Each structure stands twice: as structure tokens, then as C-alpha cells.
């Protein structure tokens, strides 16, 4: 394995509801820089894109994250091949 092969550091990121509309996409592949290994780091990377990412994922905005379809928090680890979803607090029922 080549450690610098970008395919080895790729995750799939999904967006739902208000975030899907704000970002204009429901999914994308994201290549993780070596320094990013958890949900908090990924959110910071996305905020670094500027608006609307910095606003929708910014302080004071309520959003949730799931890693491989389990609820996660900032400290949850992210590994290549993972499915990471960002979405607003749920409103079913």
C-alpha cells in the first residue's frame, strides 16, 4: 500500500434536510488530510470552505453527525471508507 494514495484517505459525506439544500448536494467524496482523524476535524475542514459551510456548521447552529449510521460527536474517529452524515436535529414522529 502506498501511504500517500488519496484513495486510501477518502470518505463519503452525506447531507440531509436543511443542510442538503444549503450545500446544494446530498453527498460527496472528501479526501481527508492526514491531520484529520475525527468528526470535529472534518467539520472544521468543511467550515474552512467559507459560506454556506461556515454558517451552517458554525457555532450556535444545531447540527448532528452520524458515522457509519451511528450517532457521533466531535471526538468520534473517522477512518477511510467511512460514511459520515451531517443533518439538523431530527423532527420525525
Amino acid at each position, binding site marked *: 500500500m502506498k501511504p500517500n494514495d488519496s484513495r486510501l484517505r477518502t470518505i463519503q459525506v452525506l447531507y*440531509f*434536510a436543511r443542510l442538503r439544500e444549503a450545500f446544494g448536494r446530498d453527498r460527496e467524496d472528501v479526501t481527508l488530510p492526514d491531520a484529520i482523524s475525527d468528526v470535529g476535524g472534518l467539520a472544521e475542514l468543511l467550515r474552512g470552505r467559507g459560506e454556506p459551510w461556515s454558517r451552517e456548521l458554525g457555532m450556535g447552529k444545531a447540527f448532528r453527525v452520524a458515522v457509519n449510521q*451511528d450517532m457521533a460527536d466531535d471526538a468520534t474517529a473517522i477512518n477511510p471508507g467511512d460514511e459520515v*452524515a451531517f443533518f439538523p436535529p*431530527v423532527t420525525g414522529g
Partner: protein
Amino acid sequence: MPIRVQVDDFDVGAEIAALRKGDPRIGGIASFVGVVRDLNEGATVSEMTLEHYPGMTESALEKIVAEAKSRWDIYDALVVHRIGRLMPTDQIVLVVVTSAHRGEAFQACEFLMDYLKTRAPFWKKEQTQQGARWVDARAVDDAAAERWN
């Protein structure tokens, strides 16, 4: 533990009959049906669309039902949740719990709805006279779920 996410409407009587069929241990059945209202946050709602996270929705609901079964002495539980376009008066969600006695069935049914509302990945978008808007999560729902901790 039947879990279903579907566009189609459901028949409460048929669902209850199927869940309790042939089980003479059952002494009580509690059920809850959630329905679309025509008013929310002071605005008239003409229709709503329910979005979900396929895959996670089913696993989240299964975990919630498993949690209910571990907390209460119930026989079985059913959760049916609709997605897609819904109109006022339409049924959205059904929870049914079977048990030997009513107390366990009532409590488990309420627990299932409280957890579903705060943990299952569904989102409502309402169409109102002022335009379309995503429904905000409510603190009262978080409080309802937290009382089971």
C-alpha cells in the same frame, strides 16, 4: 420487532391484528398514531414532506425497539413511519406494543415515541402560506425523551 418505513398509508386495525395474531399470552395492546395537523407555530400547513436517512432510520428504530424490550416486559412492538408527501389529517406514524398487562404496554409505547422523535433520522418540511420551511426540533421533545434516562 417489525419496523417499516413506507410511503403508503397504514391500517391501524390490520396492523394490530397482525401483531397479536395467535399469541394468547397478550393481555393488553397499547398503540399511538401520529397525525399531520393543519397548524404549526402559528402558520397554516397545507402539506408536508418527510425526508429520512435510508439505512440509518431502520437501524435506529430497531435499536429503540430493542431498548424498549430490555426495559419493559413486553412481547412485541411495531413501528411504522411514513415518508414522502403528507397532507393534514394524514397518518404519519404508528407504534403498537403488546404485553401481558397494560402498564408495561403504555409505558413502552410512550418511550418508543419519545425516543423516535429525538433519535430516528426523519425531517419534516412544511408548506405554509408563507412558503416552505424545515420544522425545527423542539426542546419539549428533548425533555420528554430525557425523562427516561
